């Protein structure tokens, strides 16, 4: 299924753009993470990568739906 990825910070640099339509083979955030790590190995080198849907951090067992907008959140560094 197709999902819409939105990347910030260093994740945006690694994906080479803030917005990306992505063809997800599985159905969960965990599946997405594995697929992203395979397509963009530099993501796997980060200290962490979290995901958010509807302005909320989500767990990796979350099942996503077609056209969901999923935010990639690399290690935060505000303050």
């Amino acid at each position, binding site marked *: 299924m197709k999902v819409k990825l939105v990347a910030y910070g260093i994740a945006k640099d690694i994906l080479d753009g803030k917005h990306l339509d992505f063809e997800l083979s599985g159905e969960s955030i965990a599946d997405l993470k594995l697929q992203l790590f395979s397509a963009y190995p530099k993501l796997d080198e980060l200290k962490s990568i979290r995901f958010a849907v509807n302005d909320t951090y989500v767990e990796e067992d979350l099942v996503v739906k077609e056209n969901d907008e999923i935010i990639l959140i690399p290690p*935060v560094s505000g303050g």
Partner: protein
Amino acid sequence: MFDIKVLDSTLDSEFCRSFVTDAAAGGIVVFVGTVRNQTQGKKVLKLDFEAFDSMAVKEMTTIAEAISTKWNALHVAIHHRKGSLQISEIAVIIAVSTPHRAAAFEACQYAIDTLKETVPIWKKEFFEDGEVWVATHP
């Protein structure tokens, strides 16, 4: 009351102090985070903050709610800057008023520590020989 904002213009600590002022308050603590001129001995020229605004406001509101519950805060203001900042400019302001001073110090400390872990804002430091997103790798 809360005043939670991500702003792309100069932050105003007096505004935040004034916002949290309350007749029932015995103390106000205002934390002002500023841009330091070096990182591990390396000269920093400037830095950029990128924010996921809507979620950043939501996460900072969660922090303000936690403070209100745990430390009986009367008012909380959290303003975070985004965009390009020069050395010594204000990156973040956290103002908390509580009936007694000890709680205000603790609440403010909790707020900045938690903000650095949960709020989706990213800092990029610019050096003479390049630029780097801060704290991204182990």
